[in-house]
């Protein structure tokens, strides 16, 4: 214990007496540890954001994507592969109360990117060709005017509902309702502006326009299929049974006998969350690996500096041995020093990483995201542990080298 405190005091003293070099030495550790802290904090922040958004959407939603997928991975459509098996007829079949009694509302989607033009202003935006049921399915409401109704949807009326951001950009505050907006030269009358929603799953919901499904499919996209269907179940308890109903309906619709041959996939939000976390986890693993590399580079720097230190202090080692220090004493002293150096680096890294994470959280909140600033105690413990460990692992070789020095040689060393 006495040796412990004394070693610590001497190690800190040795560190402080060479401030410049100590700082350079710990830079790698600082970067590595700050990296770990930032990654964990941003990961937790992003996850909390996605989760809060998804739960805002409502937990009793089902999504149907074209194309088969296995349980864990995302379906092919996520990667931009065109699958054309899902159609409006499928959506209509699912909406049939006799076939799926717990389905409250169904909305089919076909989507793309367009330029919306009003007079001489224009804006690039996303458009969703969807159904009148959209606001009920998605839990969203209209700020001004109204959403298009079933009649307009059926006849393919040239009407459009703007996301709040699109309305702002095109009209800049002047009233939008009743104006005519052009998309691909076709005129659409603005009948509504949506309430501001923010982002859901990294997609800005306010940078969107909505038009009736058939108009969008035929006149703008020139397709007959859907990109996805969303439906709302009356109660979360009926989610799984409804999922079965929906799968059954779609198999009948598509003439599929064996579930192995499914050309669609039904997802609930838990799946969506899983897919998202598997993607963010992958990203995180990559970033953690980068932080790990920084730590290894930092560790090699430590080893280098410790070797220099041992060489510089050869006489001191000889002296200590002449005063009765054993090999173990000398080894521990240098392990202690490198551990202290990296621990100091770890602390600086924790502070730096926390500051960066906090700044990101502030910016995200200013941008309107519900971003939680989370520094988990576990990540701090981990950072401290990892930095001490780096010091010890990379300090081992120099420390053993110091311990092995012959006291006579060391005392004669000039």
């Amino acid at each position, binding site marked *: 214990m006495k040796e412990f405190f004394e070693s610590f005091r001497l190690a800190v003293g040795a560190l402080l007496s060479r401030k410049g070099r100590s700082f350079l030495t710990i830079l790698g550790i600082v970067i590595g540890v700050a990296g770990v802290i930032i990654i964990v904090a941003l990961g937790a922040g992003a996850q909390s954001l996605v989760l809060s958004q998804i739960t805002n959407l409502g937990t009793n939603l089902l999504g149907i994507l074209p194309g088969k997928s296995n349980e864990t991975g995302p379906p092919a459509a996520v990667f931009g592969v065109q699958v054309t098996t899902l159609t409006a007829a499928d959506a209509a079949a699912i909406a049939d109360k006799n076939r799926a009694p717990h389905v409250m509302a169904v909305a089919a989607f076909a989507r793309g990117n367009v330029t919306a033009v009003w007079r001489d202003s224009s804006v690039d935006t996303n458009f969703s060709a969807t159904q009148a049921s959209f606001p009920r399915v998605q839990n969203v409401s209209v700020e001004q005017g109204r959403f298009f109704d079933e009649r307009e949807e059926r006849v393919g009326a040239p009407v459009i509902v703007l996301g709040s951001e699109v309305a702002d950009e095109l009209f800049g505050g002047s009233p939008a309702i009743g104006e005519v907006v052009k998309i691909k030269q076709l005129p659409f009358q603005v009948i509504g502006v949506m309430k501001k929603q923010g982002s859901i799953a990294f997609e800005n919901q306010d940078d969107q326009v909505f038009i009736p499904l058939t108009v969008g499919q035929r006149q703008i996209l020139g397709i007959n299929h859907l990109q996805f269907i969303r439906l709302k179940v009356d109660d979360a308890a009926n989610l799984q049974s409804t999922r079965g109903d929906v799968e059954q309906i779609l198999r009948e619709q598509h003439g599929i006998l064996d579930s192995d041959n499914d050309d669609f996939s039904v997802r609930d939000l838990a799946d969506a969350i899983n897919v998202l976390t598997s993607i963010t986890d992958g990203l995180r693993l990559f970033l953690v690996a980068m932080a790990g590399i920084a730590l290894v580079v930092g560790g090699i720097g430590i080893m280098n500096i410790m070797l220099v230190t041992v060489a510089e202090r050869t006489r001191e080692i000889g002296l200590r*041995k002449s005063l009765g220090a054993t090999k173990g*004493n000398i080894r521990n002293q240098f392990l202690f020093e490198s551990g202290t150096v990296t621990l100091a680096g770890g602390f600086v890294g924790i502070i730096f990483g926390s500051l960066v994470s906090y700044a990101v959280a502030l910016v995200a909140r200013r941008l309107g995201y519900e971003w939680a600033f989370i520094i988990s105690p576990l990540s701090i413990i981990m950072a401290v542990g990892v930095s001490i460990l780096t010091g010890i692992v990379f300090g081992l070789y120099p420390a053993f080298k110091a311990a092995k020095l012959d*006291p006579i040689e060391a005392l004669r060393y000039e």
Partner: protein
Amino acid sequence: MEKILIEVKHLHKDYKTEDVVTSVLRDINLTIASGEFVSIMGPSGSGKSTLMHILGFLDRPTSGDYLFEGINMLEFEDDTLAAIRNERIGFVFQSFNLLPRTTVLDNVKLPLLYSRKSRDEQAAVKALESVGLAHRMNYFTNQISGGEKQRAAIARALVNNPSVIFADEPTGNLDSRSGKAVMDILQTLNEQGHTIILVTHEMDTARHGKRLVRLKDGQIVGDSAIPDRIRAHDGVELQKTK
């Protein structure tokens, strides 16, 4: 006659470099009793330091016997020797070997760090007082003079109250005045009962001891008491705190 502290018989030390074997010490036979003040004198390269390192368990002889208080020391492992060295032996070097960027007190405390006995800071302060350096204990080692540095090094050698103090050219880096002060302290310590073994190549320094061992080409060529009329008596003037 005091009890025998150190006894070496037929001690040899060779250094092998490639094919050349250098015999540094040849057939050394030496007996030193507790309480002696022995000056080992000889020209440069005669093996004085090598002998001192072996006597202080820092080095091992190539052959021969070494009994310390009647115990064969060559059988012990390095770590055991380190512990014995810590408690029984104090070294004073020509080049002081104080730690830089460290206070005098911390330097003197250093042997306590490796000690199995629990002595507190008081022992270090006392050691500093006995070399008249207590007023400098919070100075950093680069803030004191050469003479003060060597006195600090003596205090460090004293702190564990060793049986024997080895001093290798302790005045070699000092002006004559500070050198004399250092020798005074060693003489006083000897009068207080410490065994002192001094290594030097100067007669003027060697004559502070009570016995003179002459070394030449690794062999002892003379071993005799230093008569009182030759002996330097400066130490007697120093305060006698027993």
